[in-house]
């Protein structure tokens, strides 16, 4: 008996040490805080939302109209990137080189934008190819909540909640990272508040604490 006890204690100790000193943080199953997955296209929010100041709802227009804010279709990217095929710096370099060598500017497309073009079924210059079909980009979903939760963006946008309240400072992220833990407790932190900063009236708070507001 004593031998078994020793063995068990040793195992728990080793397991615990593994947990504490391993690189991964301990989390409850389903908690994806600080999840920062690699995306198929290295889209930089810092560049688009931060530097270019493109408003969130230009691409994620579903937010004010339905449950899902949605990841934009490739056609939305093409609205600008039909013409914007490389960075300003690269284009200036090419222009200078072309002038120096006395030739026409070569069409330049940066690597990530080539990925957009091939998703649309276009050639690397952005021209449609006869008979080639496109394939949607398979983005990795960062902010996941379980199936038994019904979360709708629409009432939150209507109530005046800012995108950064839940998604963090996206304008500074190269790659999207989930900054909050999106647990029910975290949601209730806000749903319990007195809402001075939001447009909703205080008496609605009780409603937001109903189970069926999110679980049905």
């Amino acid at each position: 008996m004593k031998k078994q006890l020793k063995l068990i204690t040793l195992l728990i100790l080793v397991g615990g040490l593994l947990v504490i000193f391993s690189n991964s943080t301990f989390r409850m199953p389903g908690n994806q805080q600080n999840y920062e997955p690699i995306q198929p296209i290295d889209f930089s929010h810092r560049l688009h939302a931060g530097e270019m100041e493109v408003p969130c709802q230009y691409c994620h227009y579903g937010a004010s109209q339905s449950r899902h804010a949605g990841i934009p279709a490739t056609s939305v990217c093409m609205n600008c990137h039909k013409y914007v095929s490389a960075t300003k710096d690269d284009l200036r370099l090419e222009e200078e080189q072309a002038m120096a060598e006395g030739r026409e500017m070569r069409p330049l497309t940066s690597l990530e934008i080539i990925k957009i073009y091939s998703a649309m079924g276009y050639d690397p210059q952005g021209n449609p190819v006869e008979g080639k079909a496109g394939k949607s980009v398979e983005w990795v979903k960062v902010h996941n909540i379980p199936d038994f939760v019904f979360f709708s963006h629409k009432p939150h946008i209507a109530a005046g909640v800012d995108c950064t309240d839940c998604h963090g400072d996206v304008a500074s992220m190269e790659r999207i990272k989930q900054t909050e833990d999106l647990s029910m407790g975290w949601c209730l932190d806000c749903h319990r508040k007195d809402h001075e900063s939001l447009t909703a009236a205080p008496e609605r708070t009780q409603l937001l604490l109903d189970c069926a507001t999110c679980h049905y």
Partner: protein
Amino acid sequence: MPPPSSLRGEKIPLIMSKDKKYWMSKDEISVIESVAGPADLETASTEWNRRDFLKTAGFSLAAFMTACSKTPVNKAIPFLIQPEEIIPGKAYWYASTSHACGSGCGVLVKNRDSRPIKLEGNPDHPVSQGGLCPVCQASVIELYDSKRLFHPILSGEEVSWNVLDKSVVQGLQKARENGQKIVLLTETVTSPSTKYYIKKFLKKYANANHVEYDPISYSAILDAHEMNYGKRILPQYDFEKADMILSFDADFLGTWLSPTQFTKDYRKNRNLDAKHISKHIQVESRLSVTGAKADERIVKSPAGMLQLAKDIEHALSGKGGHGIASDIAKELKHYKGKSLVVSSMNEPAMQESVNRINHALGNVGKTVILKNPNLQKSGNDASVVQLIADMKAGKVGALLVAGVNPVYDLPEGEAFTDSMKTIPTTVCFSAKQNETTELCNAICPSPHYLESWSDDEFTSGTLSMTQPAIQALGDTKSLRKSVTGWAGIDDDERNLVRNYWKKIYTTRKKGSQSFNRWWDNLVHDGFVKIKPKSVSVSRFKKGAMAKSLLKNGLTLVAYPSLQMLDGRHAENPWLQELPDPISKLTWDNAANLSPKKAKELGVSQSDVIQIKASGKSVELPVYIQEGQSDEVVAVSLGYGRKGTERFKNFGPDWIQKKATLGEGELVGERINHLLERNDNALSFSGISVSISKTGKTADLALTQTYNTLKNPENTAPPSMKVRPFIQETTFDEYKKDPSSGAHHGHQVVTLWKDDHPYDKHHWGMAIDLGACTGCSACVISCQVENNVPVVGKDEVFRRRDMAWMRIDRYYSGEGDDVDVAFQPMMCQHCDNSPCEPVCPVLATVHSSEGLNQQVYNRCVGTRFCANNCPYKVRRFNWFDYAHNDELENMVLNPDVTVRSRGVMEKCSMCIQRIQEAKIEAKAKGIPLADGDIKLACQQSCPADAITFGDLNDPESDISKLVEDPRHYHVLEELNARPTVGYLTMVRNREEEKGGNHHG
């Protein structure tokens, strides 16, 4: 652990349970002494035993598991090119028309992510008027049936359309060369464009003709009008204008002709605030939904019904009469020009009698409209008989069958089969394999109506549009496109319809729009009013009365089942599990016998009997049906369909599972071979039969035998023996005192402080028992909307059906005098719910808006809540009913959780719809208006029986109904304080039988 052994080395049994007696060894040494005690364990061997291994393994597993937890990667895949109108997560609607039954209800198709998931009645459409029957509601799942035909088949092999078309054209040409007939056999074609193209097709192939028939035949009505008025027409019946309705066996609220439209119109003349409401007398031989609703019901055998009609006719013409006939005739005369007499019997004699009565009463042109006829049915039984004869004589060289299943439908099915085998070219248009496609060498897969283009004129003057709501799921072609292809015209589905109307719309359009505008409006609205093709009818001519072949004695009455109709929906699991409104029978059809007849024959319920008619027989289990004629055995049509063998193992897999069907069996039995022809007219009743016992029994999966609100006799205290859950009164009593019939419980003092303040909204519902016809459209609508599973025959038999909404059917009285009351029952959302305090994990709690919420992810499956619910409306998921069929699962509503095993569910009052409306109002910044939220059951009800709204809004409909003296709660005495109320049923009869009814 080593087995205990006695000191003498004999083994002693280890059985230690309380029930079993311990027996001692032969030497009476106590067993307990010889079992190894704790002390023994210390000195036991040091090898690692099983329990310790498991403990260690468990701990280490837990330790390692905490360190590594990886959530699966979720992908988000958007469109490549986003269509402008579609926002993922938001539903968008198309207006279309249903082809589920042939009445042509206008529907609004709810699309989510480019697939239709729900149908609602188009409120503006003249046929559906916002309601939908259960068959139409359930038809959406037939779109996603994996057993559908997705490719053309030629001689048993899948081929391309080119190959099939070539082969068919070859066959048609050969038939023409041989001088044989080419016959196109379809059901009533209501599409003007298809009729036009068929004409072109027939012209191309000389010696070709088009035969139309309706499986549930209306031919006698058409023929009778031809005799009396010179034209073969089916009149439009206006139930709204009819102050008195006399129906001979016509189930117009359930299955006859256009039940949704008739229910809506019928209800318009049952307004209790008006001075008069309509008087409805039903004469029938079996208990139907319409008979249950009637103010007065007269039970007669089929021959008796005809005799009564003749007697009334005589009484009306002053030739005397006696008894009921003269009473009814007197009443009818009082309502001259405002009455309506109808019959569904396909007996020429009966229809001629009905015509004469309607003429004598001056109803023609008022409630029976001939000038703008009904185009829904125009089948001709005589032409079918001619076709069968031609086929037998070998005169037919090519047979094209579309939209009908003659091998199943016709009593001459066997002869038809034999003849078909001799025809060189047989082509069948069908969505699924059926009895007829098996005999065809070319099978053209038909699209579902939700993926087709079609124009239809169901009633003269209204053009209904059918447009696809989803891209065709298979390589299907409509009849129109195939026929035009074989006639040499090549165009796509949409243009065939559009170009036809472009050509002729000027002759029929109302208004002065350009064609493009007119067409866009048509597609947007789903229908448009056009100039009717009015029919000139001659003056009434009496004509010779046909001979009646309705037999006396025990006869068979074959009626279309409310779920299956003529059998076309047999492979729809929702409809198979929908309990028949009267018998509450699922997954089967039965031989209905009146209690007296059953006693006479010496059979009881579930006994299998053999019904023999003219040399053919069928075996069916007995169901004892109150209120049925003693001379009739009533069986529903639409069962015994090939294709239902797929339901053999339907239902969850578990150790005690009983298969839904036996080996080689089908769901129910086909009885079409017992039908007879009266001259050419297909007779569905009055067929002489004999019954013999077989000694076998069969389980009947009935849903009415459990979840009843009645107090069991032996447990109820004397004052509580009769519970007043059904309350009714008569119209005269109601006029004198609006609260008559309503029985209210005493005001009870409650111990609970009012801890449920409803500040914002307080949702409430009221169901008008006087309106409810028991049609069960609400049941199916709820099932579609809320992803309610289908459990199979065995589970229903074990009292585990999953329907959130059920319609309880109560009888009062006995024999011919029986009265029927329907009561839709769902979660009553009690303010003092008995289910809430008993949940150990608080999975069911009360919302701040008055709803009883069920939180699925919190539920652990204690089932205490279901135990405590006095209305027995809670359903437990005993198994994982959902399965991974990708195609079928496309019909699931993404706004509602699909529940897994171990979770309790019940009516949520469509909280997803309430939330959606609230969010919409919040986004727009406007308050919610009464009528913004329509629950699934409420929206579908053709009788508008369900009202829903905010009790906190004094102007809402529901608040007004709560103040109505007719309003009461079921089981009020339990003080559960339900928010669902019921309105007393009011019948328009002289006096209530036996005083006011309770319980």
